[in-house]
């Protein structure tokens, strides 16, 4: 295998692995905080059981997230030393703040997991909240670093060297806000729907299980609100991309020719050779509207760029369709849930609705992976947009496929084990609530 390809795959796999745990690390503490809050307020034991059961899962996920993140911070250099040599001093600032966030997060997590009996209830609840807040903060910081790669700022590039470095300007680059908002919401969508979906599937087996009912309500409430916000934030992201990375926008929309009143292309298979899209649905003028807020605005097509600077159109386009498709489906389910919650409580635990929620279990994570594919593959062939090519950043060590194989084997192993551990958590979890709790039948709250 070619070294460049191996390195790109290794980076993609490591990041794709880490992001799952990162999303859970950002959102899950808030779900636990809600459950614990209800326990402290109402004294209902089921809420404490829920918070504790969730926290055991979180401990497993957090450890996996922490070690895979540690791998990443070395991998940036192991694979892309030339990039890091130049970029480190420019985009390092968010990472240095992220360090503090990690510390606070890890300390608070230690207190939360091991402190049920040692801390007063409200103090314990507070440590859980701190885990969540610092998790979100570290996510935002690291996304700022990634945004800088999409929208480099805070330096002048002269003869292959960066001068006049301004780390603050680099951190608050043009892409930062849109990416940070979109990523943070994504974490809540993915985790909310993931957790709600799992409990929905378990409810299908035992519909009156109080434990799973409470869990589903908390998780889906968070997921629903986030899923409704996400398309709005996605629209902001798209407008932003249209401004700063027109080639990426053109690739994700499979838009080859520059034109006014551009059609929005939904689905379909782009054909780079002939510059067409087959089997697509087209909505006239819609792309111009979505990208620039005006049905007649000009949208730049890929033809404006030399072909060797095109991102891979097929991958980017399909990934984008997957993200948006998943996004709208979850938004729909979210709206339905909120409607039922307010107006039609008796429909909340109907079989068909539980199935619908169950199907959504992996959708948020699929959307996250797809979204990152859009962002990262859509930036190609650049590692720093229009400054440094990915191939020029590569390590000089030959044989990079072997580290790739090692990482694949390691992460496959961890994936299997984590799934197995989760399975074991679930089968031991809700015995206590299995005997259909008669009160739950009418579901008072």
């Amino acid at each position, binding site marked *: 295998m070619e070294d460049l390809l191996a390195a790109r795959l290794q980076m993609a796999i490591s990041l794709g692995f880490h992001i799952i745990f990162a999303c859970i690390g950002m959102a899950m503490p808030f779900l636990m905080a809600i459950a614990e809050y209800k326990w402290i307020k109402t004294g209902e034991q089921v809420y404490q059981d829920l918070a504790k059961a969730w926290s*055991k899962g979180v*401990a*497993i996920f*957090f*450890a*996996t997230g*922490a*070690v*895979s993140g*540690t*791998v990443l*911070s*070395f991998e940036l*250099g*192991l694979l892309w030393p*030339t990039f*890091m*040599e*130049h970029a*480190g*001093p*420019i985009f*390092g*600032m968010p*990472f*240095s703040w*992220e*360090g*503090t966030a*990690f*510390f*606070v997060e*890890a*300390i608070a*997590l*230690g*207190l939360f*997991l*091991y*402190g*049920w*009996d*040692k801390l007063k209830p409200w103090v314990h609840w507070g440590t859980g909240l701190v885990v969540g807040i610092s998790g979100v903060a570290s996510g935002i910081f690291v996304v700022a670093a990634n945004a800088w790669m999409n929208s480099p700022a805070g330096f002048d590039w002269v003869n292959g060297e960066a001068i006049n*470095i*301004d*780390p603050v300007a680099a951190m608050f680059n043009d892409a930062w806000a849109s990416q940070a908002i979109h990523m943070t919401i994504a974490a809540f969508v993915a985790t909310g729907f993931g957790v709600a979906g799992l409990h929905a599937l378990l409810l299908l087996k035992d519909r009156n299980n109080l434990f799973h009912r409470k869990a589903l309500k908390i998780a889906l409430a968070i997921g629903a609100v986030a899923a409704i916000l996400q398309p709005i934030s996605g629209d902001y992201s798209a407008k932003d991309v249209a401004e700063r990375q027109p080639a990426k926008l053109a690739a994700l929309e499979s838009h080859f020719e520059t034109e006014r009143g551009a059609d929005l292309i939904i689905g379909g298979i782009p054909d780079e050779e002939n510059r067409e899209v087959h089997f697509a649905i087209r909505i006239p003028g819609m792309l111009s509207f979505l990208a620039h807020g005006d049905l007649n605005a000009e949208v730049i097509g890929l033809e404006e760029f030399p072909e060797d600077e095109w991102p891979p159109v097929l991958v980017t386009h399909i990934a984008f369709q997957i993200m948006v498709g998943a996004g709208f489906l979850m938004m729909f389910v979210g709206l339905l849930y909120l409607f039922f919650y307010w107006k039609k409580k008796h429909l909340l635990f109907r079989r068909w609705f539980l199935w619908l929620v169950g199907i959504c279990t992996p959708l948020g994570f699929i959307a996250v992976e797809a979204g990152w594919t859009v962002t990262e593959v859509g930036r190609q062939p650049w590692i720093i947009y229009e400054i440094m090519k990915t191939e020029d950043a590569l390590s*000089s*060590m*030959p*044989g990079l496929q072997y*580290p790739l194989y090692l990482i694949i084997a*390691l992460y496959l192993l*961890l994936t299997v*084990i984590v799934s197995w*551990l989760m399975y*074991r*958590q679930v*089968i*031991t*979890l809700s015995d206590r609530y299995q005997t259909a709790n008669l009160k739950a039948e009418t579901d008072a709250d």
Partner: protein
Amino acid sequence: MLIEIVIFFLGLSIVFYVLFGGADFGAGVLEILSGKGDRETIAHAIGPVWEANHVWLVLVVVILFMAFPKVYAAMSVHLHIPLLLMLVGIVLRGTAFTYMHYDAIKDETNDIYNAVFKISSVFTPLFLGVIAGAATLGKINPEPEHFVEGFITPWLNLFSFSVGLFTVTLFTFLAAIYLIGETSQEKQRSAFTKTARNLNIAAVFIGILVFASAHFEGLTLLSMFLDSWFAILMAALATLLLPAIWWSLQHYKVILSRIFAAGQVVAILLAWFWVQYPSIINRTDGFEDLTFYNTAAPDATLTQLVWALVIGSCIILPCLFYLMRVFKGGQFTQSKTNQ
């Protein structure tokens, strides 16, 4: 001045990683040495703190690539293989430890996690030491003729592995000392005490091995050492602490023995640091060594880094103190948590 502050924080992070993260690794090694009986004590001692302890390493990496990017790049390229092996160890160890603890069903899989935990507790610090040794040795050649010269020779040698072995020994020694205070069983305490003493002796001999292998590999470590009054001072301090540690062990002065042991390790680290200073990575003849000064990032970057570190410390240190107080205060009356 700016750069000295950064160096101070880099050194501090390394010291903390060795003192806390290192002791975590050492605890795993101790389990191998002492058998199944200590598993509970060790799991109980590491549980709440390991995650925080290992963030020091992340901090070291971030400081390196932000402030001394050429050093980070050079290490990443030429020490790719030992770094990768160390990472595999970090992943296996951290996950195995947590999975062992949080597996909902306790059955024989627990023994597998435990085995992985123990093995990776040995080879992770071994490669950490190998990397440190390779940085000192000076066989890193930025323009290698072939693969072996560029990516193997720098670290696959007697000296680097002696440093690796030394690291494992020191970490295990630290763990033994810390654990004396974590248990209330008399038998276990005296076992840890004995192990700590033996490891202390072993460290002296392996230390001699480090110097001998340096000589063998053509590194004049001893004379570099003797040229520096500070290094001699630190070596003297480390030696003086030997009887002090023994005395405190004899009398079960838990806190005092910890302070002495930590002091000894810090003295060794400082001596190494001073012998190197201002170089971080020594390269083969004909290439300038990479020092703090010829690789430093511009002042604008260092300023931001210092802000982040100073403000970060003000946030982290009180939190860390609180964590330690909740879990490490009142060692002997410790009741079991229900997790």
